[in-house]
Protein backbone atom coordinates (compact mmCIF):
# COMPACT_ATOMS: atom_id res chain seq x y z
CA UNK A 1 0.00 0.00 0.00
CA UNK A 2 2.59 2.45 -1.06
CA UNK A 3 1.08 5.63 -2.31
CA UNK A 4 2.35 7.32 -5.42
CA UNK A 5 4.57 9.88 -3.82
CA UNK A 6 6.50 7.21 -1.99
CA UNK A 7 6.76 4.86 -4.89
CA UNK A 8 8.39 7.62 -6.89
CA UNK A 9 11.19 7.88 -4.44
CA UNK A 10 11.79 4.16 -4.00
CA UNK A 11 14.26 2.04 -5.85
CA UNK A 12 13.53 -1.37 -7.35
CA UNK A 13 14.07 -3.19 -4.07
CA UNK A 14 11.51 -0.99 -2.38
CA UNK A 15 14.05 0.65 -0.15
CA UNK A 16 14.93 4.23 -0.54
CA UNK A 17 18.42 5.19 0.29
CA UNK A 18 19.78 1.81 -0.70
CA UNK A 19 19.05 2.27 -4.36
CA UNK A 20 18.63 5.80 -5.43
CA UNK A 21 20.41 5.45 -8.73
CA UNK A 22 17.34 4.32 -10.61
CA UNK A 23 15.72 7.67 -10.94
CA UNK A 24 18.64 9.83 -10.03
CA UNK A 25 18.06 11.93 -13.10
CA UNK A 26 14.94 13.29 -11.38
CA UNK A 27 17.03 14.45 -8.49
CA UNK A 28 18.16 18.04 -8.50
CA UNK A 29 19.91 17.88 -5.16
CA UNK A 30 22.64 15.67 -3.79
CA UNK A 31 21.21 14.64 -0.43
CA UNK A 32 24.52 13.22 0.76
CA UNK A 33 26.04 16.66 0.28
CA UNK A 34 23.08 18.26 2.05
CA UNK A 35 23.65 15.95 5.00
CA UNK A 36 27.38 16.76 5.04
CA UNK A 37 26.73 20.50 4.89
CA UNK A 38 24.28 20.28 7.76
CA UNK A 39 26.59 18.08 9.82
CA UNK A 40 29.28 20.73 9.72
CA UNK A 41 27.00 23.75 9.89
CA UNK A 42 27.54 26.17 12.76
CA UNK A 43 24.13 27.80 13.04
CA UNK A 44 25.25 29.72 16.13
CA UNK A 45 27.37 31.93 13.85
CA UNK A 46 24.30 33.08 11.89
CA UNK A 47 21.84 32.87 14.75
CA UNK A 48 20.56 36.43 14.33
CA UNK A 49 19.61 35.95 10.67
CA UNK A 50 18.03 32.54 11.29
CA UNK A 51 16.14 33.86 14.31
CA UNK A 52 14.85 36.89 12.39
CA UNK A 53 13.51 34.58 9.66
CA UNK A 54 11.96 32.22 12.22
CA UNK A 55 10.30 35.09 14.11
CA UNK A 56 8.77 36.43 10.92
CA UNK A 57 7.32 32.99 10.24
CA UNK A 58 6.09 32.36 13.78
CA UNK A 59 4.41 35.78 13.88
CA UNK A 60 1.66 33.97 12.03
CA UNK A 61 0.88 31.97 15.16
CA UNK A 62 -0.32 35.17 16.77
CA UNK A 63 -2.92 35.61 14.02
CA UNK A 64 -4.83 32.52 15.09
CA UNK A 65 -6.80 31.68 18.21
CA UNK A 66 -5.72 28.06 18.01
CA UNK A 67 -3.77 26.66 20.93
CA UNK A 68 -1.06 24.25 19.95
CA UNK A 69 0.11 21.37 22.13
CA UNK A 70 2.86 19.58 20.25
CA UNK A 71 4.87 20.86 17.31
CA UNK A 72 7.27 19.32 14.84
CA UNK A 73 10.25 21.56 14.14
CA UNK A 74 11.84 20.60 10.81
CA UNK A 75 15.46 21.70 10.46
CA UNK A 76 15.01 24.61 12.87
CA UNK A 77 18.73 24.93 13.66
CA UNK A 78 18.29 25.85 17.35
CA UNK A 79 16.22 28.98 16.73
CA UNK A 80 12.72 27.60 16.11
CA UNK A 81 12.45 25.20 19.06
CA UNK A 82 13.13 27.85 21.78
CA UNK A 83 10.61 30.24 20.19
CA UNK A 84 7.96 27.50 20.22
CA UNK A 85 8.73 26.51 23.81
CA UNK A 86 8.34 30.17 24.83
CA UNK A 87 4.78 29.83 23.59
CA UNK A 88 4.21 26.79 25.81
CA UNK A 89 4.35 24.26 22.98
CA UNK A 90 6.07 20.87 23.33
CA UNK A 91 8.60 20.47 20.52
CA UNK A 92 9.97 17.51 18.59
CA UNK A 93 12.94 18.62 16.46
CA UNK A 94 13.99 16.73 13.39
CA UNK A 95 16.93 17.20 11.05
CA UNK A 96 18.71 15.18 8.39
CA UNK A 97 21.81 15.64 10.51
CA UNK A 98 21.70 13.90 13.92
CA UNK A 99 24.19 16.52 15.14
CA UNK A 100 21.82 19.39 14.36
CA UNK A 101 18.74 17.50 15.59
CA UNK A 102 20.32 16.96 18.99
CA UNK A 103 21.20 20.60 19.62
CA UNK A 104 17.69 22.02 19.81
CA UNK A 105 17.10 21.21 23.47
CA UNK A 106 13.93 19.33 22.58
CA UNK A 107 12.96 15.77 21.81
CA UNK A 108 15.12 14.99 18.79
CA UNK A 109 14.83 12.64 15.82
CA UNK A 110 17.24 12.35 12.89
CA UNK A 111 15.15 11.89 9.77
CA UNK A 112 15.15 12.42 6.03
CA UNK A 113 12.47 14.97 5.09
CA UNK A 114 11.69 12.81 2.06
CA UNK A 115 10.95 9.77 4.29
CA UNK A 116 9.46 11.04 7.51
CA UNK A 117 9.05 8.62 10.42
CA UNK A 118 5.97 10.11 12.08
CA UNK A 119 2.61 8.42 12.61
CA UNK A 120 -0.48 10.15 11.22
CA UNK A 121 -1.93 12.92 13.38
CA UNK A 122 1.11 13.14 15.66
CA UNK A 123 1.28 16.96 15.79
CA UNK A 124 -0.99 19.96 15.69
CA UNK A 125 1.70 22.26 14.33
CA UNK A 126 4.55 21.78 11.87
CA UNK A 127 7.17 24.51 11.43
CA UNK A 128 9.83 24.38 8.70
CA UNK A 129 11.85 27.57 8.75
CA UNK A 130 14.13 27.74 5.71
CA UNK A 131 14.60 24.00 5.72
CA UNK A 132 12.69 22.52 2.79
CA UNK A 133 14.67 23.87 -0.15
CA UNK A 134 17.20 21.04 -0.54
CA UNK A 135 14.52 18.39 -0.98
CA UNK A 136 14.11 16.59 -4.30
CA UNK A 137 10.54 15.44 -3.83
CA UNK A 138 9.05 18.50 -2.18
CA UNK A 139 5.40 17.61 -2.97
CA UNK A 140 6.02 14.19 -1.38
CA UNK A 141 7.50 15.76 1.74
CA UNK A 142 4.61 18.20 2.05
CA UNK A 143 2.09 15.35 1.80
CA UNK A 144 3.91 13.45 4.55
CA UNK A 145 4.01 16.55 6.74
CA UNK A 146 0.29 17.10 6.21
CA UNK A 147 -0.40 13.52 7.25
CA UNK A 148 1.66 13.99 10.40
CA UNK A 149 -0.76 16.77 11.35
CA UNK A 150 -4.05 16.28 13.19
CA UNK A 151 -7.12 17.56 11.35
CA UNK A 152 -7.12 21.36 11.62
CA UNK A 153 -3.40 21.34 12.40
CA UNK A 154 -1.29 24.18 11.06
CA UNK A 155 1.66 23.97 8.66
CA UNK A 156 4.05 26.94 8.58
CA UNK A 157 7.06 27.02 6.29
CA UNK A 158 9.42 29.50 4.76
CA UNK A 159 11.40 28.76 1.62
CA UNK A 160 13.91 30.96 -0.16
CA UNK A 161 12.10 31.99 -3.33
CA UNK A 162 13.34 33.20 -6.69
CA UNK A 163 15.16 36.48 -6.10
CA UNK A 164 17.13 35.12 -3.15
CA UNK A 165 20.89 35.65 -3.60
CA UNK A 166 20.08 37.14 -7.03
CA UNK A 167 23.05 39.51 -6.72
CA UNK A 168 25.44 36.65 -6.03
CA UNK A 169 23.98 34.52 -8.81
CA UNK A 170 24.44 37.33 -11.35
CA UNK A 171 27.98 38.12 -10.19
CA UNK A 172 29.08 34.47 -10.26
CA UNK A 173 27.62 33.91 -13.70
CA UNK A 174 29.32 37.00 -15.06
CA UNK A 175 32.68 36.17 -13.49
CA UNK A 176 32.58 32.58 -14.63
CA UNK A 177 31.61 33.53 -18.18
CA UNK A 178 34.57 35.91 -18.27
CA UNK A 179 37.02 33.36 -16.89
CA UNK A 180 35.94 30.15 -18.55
CA UNK A 181 33.33 31.10 -21.12
CA UNK A 182 30.63 29.07 -19.39
CA UNK A 183 28.66 28.95 -16.16
CA UNK A 184 28.02 26.13 -13.69
CA UNK A 185 24.97 26.05 -11.39
CA UNK A 186 26.44 27.56 -8.23
CA UNK A 187 23.23 28.88 -6.71
CA UNK A 188 20.28 26.60 -6.01
CA UNK A 189 17.26 26.90 -8.36
CA UNK A 190 14.69 28.56 -6.08
CA UNK A 191 10.95 28.22 -6.68
CA UNK A 192 8.78 31.09 -7.81
CA UNK A 193 6.31 32.40 -5.22
CA UNK A 194 3.38 31.36 -7.41
CA UNK A 195 4.61 27.75 -7.49
CA UNK A 196 4.67 27.68 -3.70
CA UNK A 197 0.92 28.24 -3.31
CA UNK A 198 0.29 25.59 -5.95
CA UNK A 199 2.53 23.18 -4.07
CA UNK A 200 0.49 23.56 -0.88
CA UNK A 201 -2.72 22.94 -2.76
CA UNK A 202 -1.25 19.92 -4.51
CA UNK A 203 -0.21 18.49 -1.16
CA UNK A 204 -3.80 18.68 0.06
CA UNK A 205 -3.58 21.59 2.48
CA UNK A 206 -6.73 23.58 3.12
CA UNK A 207 -6.77 27.39 3.02
CA UNK A 208 -3.29 27.60 1.47
CA UNK A 209 -1.56 30.98 1.50
CA UNK A 210 1.86 31.97 0.16
CA UNK A 211 3.22 35.47 0.55
CA UNK A 212 6.65 36.99 0.14
CA UNK A 213 8.80 38.71 2.73
CA UNK A 214 11.99 40.40 1.54
CA UNK A 215 14.99 40.76 3.80
CA UNK A 216 18.05 42.70 2.67
CA UNK A 217 21.32 41.85 4.34
CA UNK A 218 24.13 44.39 4.10
CA UNK A 219 27.66 43.07 4.03
CA UNK A 220 30.71 45.30 4.47
CA UNK A 221 32.86 42.35 3.47
CA UNK A 222 31.20 40.07 0.91
CA UNK A 223 33.46 37.20 2.00
CA UNK A 224 31.39 37.16 5.19
CA UNK A 225 28.37 36.25 3.06
CA UNK A 226 30.11 33.06 1.93
CA UNK A 227 31.09 32.29 5.52
CA UNK A 228 27.49 32.81 6.66
CA UNK A 229 26.11 30.51 3.97
CA UNK A 230 28.54 27.83 5.06
CA UNK A 231 27.67 28.32 8.74
CA UNK A 232 23.97 27.96 7.94
CA UNK A 233 24.69 24.69 6.10
CA UNK A 234 23.65 26.32 2.83
CA UNK A 235 26.57 25.57 0.53
CA UNK A 236 25.84 24.29 -2.95
CA UNK A 237 24.29 20.80 -3.04
CA UNK A 238 22.95 20.91 -6.58
CA UNK A 239 23.63 17.43 -7.98
CA UNK A 240 24.98 18.74 -11.28
CA UNK A 241 27.21 21.28 -9.58
CA UNK A 242 30.74 21.63 -10.88
CA UNK A 243 32.66 19.54 -8.37
CA UNK A 244 36.06 20.67 -9.62
CA UNK A 245 37.87 23.27 -7.61
CA UNK A 246 36.78 26.56 -9.16
CA UNK A 247 39.40 28.80 -10.81
CA UNK A 248 41.20 30.69 -8.07
CA UNK A 249 40.07 33.98 -9.53
CA UNK A 250 36.36 33.08 -9.64
CA UNK A 251 35.16 34.05 -6.19
CA UNK A 252 37.34 37.18 -5.82
CA UNK A 253 36.13 38.39 -9.22
CA UNK A 254 32.48 37.57 -8.48
CA UNK A 255 32.63 39.28 -5.10
CA UNK A 256 34.16 42.38 -6.69
CA UNK A 257 31.30 42.44 -9.21
CA UNK A 258 28.63 42.57 -6.50
CA UNK A 259 26.81 45.90 -6.59
CA UNK A 260 27.62 48.19 -3.67
CA UNK A 261 25.45 50.63 -1.82
CA UNK A 262 27.28 53.15 0.39
CA UNK A 263 30.24 50.83 0.45
CA UNK A 264 28.22 47.81 1.47
CA UNK A 265 26.94 44.88 -0.52
CA UNK A 266 23.17 44.36 -0.30
CA UNK A 267 22.06 40.73 -0.53
CA UNK A 268 18.41 39.83 -0.95
CA UNK A 269 16.65 37.03 0.88
CA UNK A 270 13.20 36.60 -0.58
CA UNK A 271 11.25 34.35 1.74
CA UNK A 272 8.13 32.59 0.55
CA UNK A 273 5.99 32.25 3.67
CA UNK A 274 3.64 29.30 3.38
CA UNK A 275 0.59 28.63 5.53
CA UNK A 276 -1.76 25.69 5.16
CA UNK A 277 -4.10 23.68 7.35
CA UNK A 278 -4.71 19.96 7.54
CA UNK A 279 -8.28 19.64 6.27
CA UNK A 280 -11.04 19.34 8.87
CA UNK A 281 -14.84 19.44 8.59
CA UNK A 282 -14.95 22.53 10.85
CA UNK A 283 -13.14 24.64 8.25
CA UNK A 284 -14.93 26.80 5.68
CA UNK A 285 -15.82 24.50 2.81
CA UNK A 286 -16.45 25.37 -0.83
CA UNK A 287 -20.01 24.66 -1.96
CA UNK A 288 -20.69 21.78 -4.27
CA UNK A 289 -21.00 22.84 -7.92
CA UNK A 290 -24.63 22.93 -8.98
CA UNK A 291 -25.97 23.80 -5.55
CA UNK A 292 -27.00 27.35 -6.62
CA UNK A 293 -30.63 28.38 -6.56
CA UNK A 294 -30.50 31.56 -8.69
CA UNK A 295 -29.43 31.33 -12.29
CA UNK A 296 -26.56 33.44 -13.48
CA UNK A 297 -28.74 34.89 -16.28
CA UNK A 298 -31.19 36.13 -13.71
CA UNK A 299 -28.49 37.61 -11.54
CA UNK A 300 -26.89 39.42 -14.48
CA UNK A 301 -30.11 40.66 -16.03
CA UNK A 302 -31.18 42.51 -12.90
CA UNK A 303 -28.14 44.63 -12.08
CA UNK A 304 -30.14 47.07 -9.96
CA UNK A 305 -32.17 44.50 -8.11
CA UNK A 306 -31.67 44.56 -4.35
CA UNK A 307 -29.26 41.92 -3.17
CA UNK A 308 -31.02 38.68 -2.60
CA UNK A 309 -31.19 37.31 0.93
CA UNK A 310 -28.05 35.55 2.08
CA UNK A 311 -27.64 32.81 -0.39
CA UNK A 312 -24.76 30.52 0.24
CA UNK A 313 -24.98 29.01 -3.21
CA UNK A 314 -24.68 32.37 -4.87
CA UNK A 315 -21.24 33.10 -3.53
CA UNK A 316 -18.39 33.30 -5.94
CA UNK A 317 -16.24 30.25 -6.27
Amino acid at each position, binding site marked *: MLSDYRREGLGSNGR*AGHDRSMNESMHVFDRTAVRRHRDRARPGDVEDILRDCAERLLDRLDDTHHRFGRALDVGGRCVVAPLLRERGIEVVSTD*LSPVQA*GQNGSLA*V*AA*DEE*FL*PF*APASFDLVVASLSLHWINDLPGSLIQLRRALRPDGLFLASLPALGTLAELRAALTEAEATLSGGAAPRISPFPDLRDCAGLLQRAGFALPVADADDITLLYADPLALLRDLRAAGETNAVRLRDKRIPPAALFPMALSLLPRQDGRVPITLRLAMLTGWAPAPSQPQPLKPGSGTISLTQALSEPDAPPSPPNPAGSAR
Partner: protein
Amino acid sequence: MTETAVPVDPRLLEILVCPLTKQTLTYDRVRNELVSTAAGLAYPIRDGIPIMLPDEARRLDEA
Protein backbone atom coordinates in the same frame (compact mmCIF):
# COMPACT_ATOMS: atom_id res chain seq x y z
CA MET B 1 27.77 -2.58 23.46
CA THR B 2 29.91 -1.44 26.34
CA GLU B 3 28.80 2.19 26.50
CA THR B 4 25.74 2.99 28.54
CA ALA B 5 22.92 3.32 26.06
CA VAL B 6 20.69 6.34 26.48
CA PRO B 7 17.13 5.05 26.06
CA VAL B 8 14.64 6.77 23.81
CA ASP B 9 12.03 9.09 25.30
CA PRO B 10 8.69 7.24 25.60
CA ARG B 11 6.91 10.26 24.08
CA LEU B 12 8.82 9.60 20.86
CA LEU B 13 7.92 5.91 20.86
CA GLU B 14 4.27 6.91 20.61
CA ILE B 15 4.70 8.86 17.38
CA LEU B 16 7.55 7.18 15.51
CA VAL B 17 6.88 4.80 12.61
CA CYS B 18 9.16 3.26 10.01
CA PRO B 19 9.99 5.98 7.47
CA LEU B 20 9.78 3.53 4.56
CA THR B 21 6.72 1.43 5.38
CA LYS B 22 5.00 3.77 7.88
CA GLN B 23 4.37 0.65 10.00
CA THR B 24 4.74 0.57 13.76
CA LEU B 25 8.13 -0.13 15.30
CA THR B 26 9.14 -2.32 18.18
CA TYR B 27 11.66 -1.08 20.68
CA ASP B 28 14.52 -3.47 21.36
CA ARG B 29 15.75 -2.39 24.78
CA VAL B 30 18.77 -4.64 24.77
CA ARG B 31 20.22 -3.42 21.51
CA ASN B 32 18.60 0.01 21.92
CA GLU B 33 17.15 -0.09 18.44
CA LEU B 34 13.80 0.56 16.82
CA VAL B 35 12.90 -2.45 14.73
CA SER B 36 10.77 -2.35 11.61
CA THR B 37 9.92 -5.93 10.73
CA ALA B 38 8.10 -4.82 7.60
CA ALA B 39 11.19 -3.10 6.17
CA GLY B 40 13.65 -5.58 7.72
CA LEU B 41 15.58 -2.74 9.31
CA ALA B 42 16.65 -1.77 12.81
CA TYR B 43 17.12 1.94 13.40
CA PRO B 44 19.79 2.80 15.97
CA ILE B 45 19.34 5.18 18.88
CA ARG B 46 22.41 7.31 19.58
CA ASP B 47 22.53 9.53 22.66
CA GLY B 48 18.78 9.11 22.97
CA ILE B 49 18.22 10.32 19.39
CA PRO B 50 16.47 7.84 17.10
CA ILE B 51 18.37 7.80 13.79
CA MET B 52 15.48 7.16 11.41
CA LEU B 53 17.70 7.13 8.32
CA PRO B 54 17.41 3.96 6.21
CA ASP B 55 21.05 4.40 5.13
CA GLU B 56 22.20 4.06 8.72
CA ALA B 57 19.84 1.28 9.76
CA ARG B 58 20.99 -2.28 10.38
CA ARG B 59 19.51 -4.85 8.00
CA LEU B 60 17.83 -7.59 9.97
CA ASP B 61 18.82 -10.39 7.59
CA GLU B 62 22.48 -9.59 8.26
CA ALA B 63 22.14 -9.98 12.02
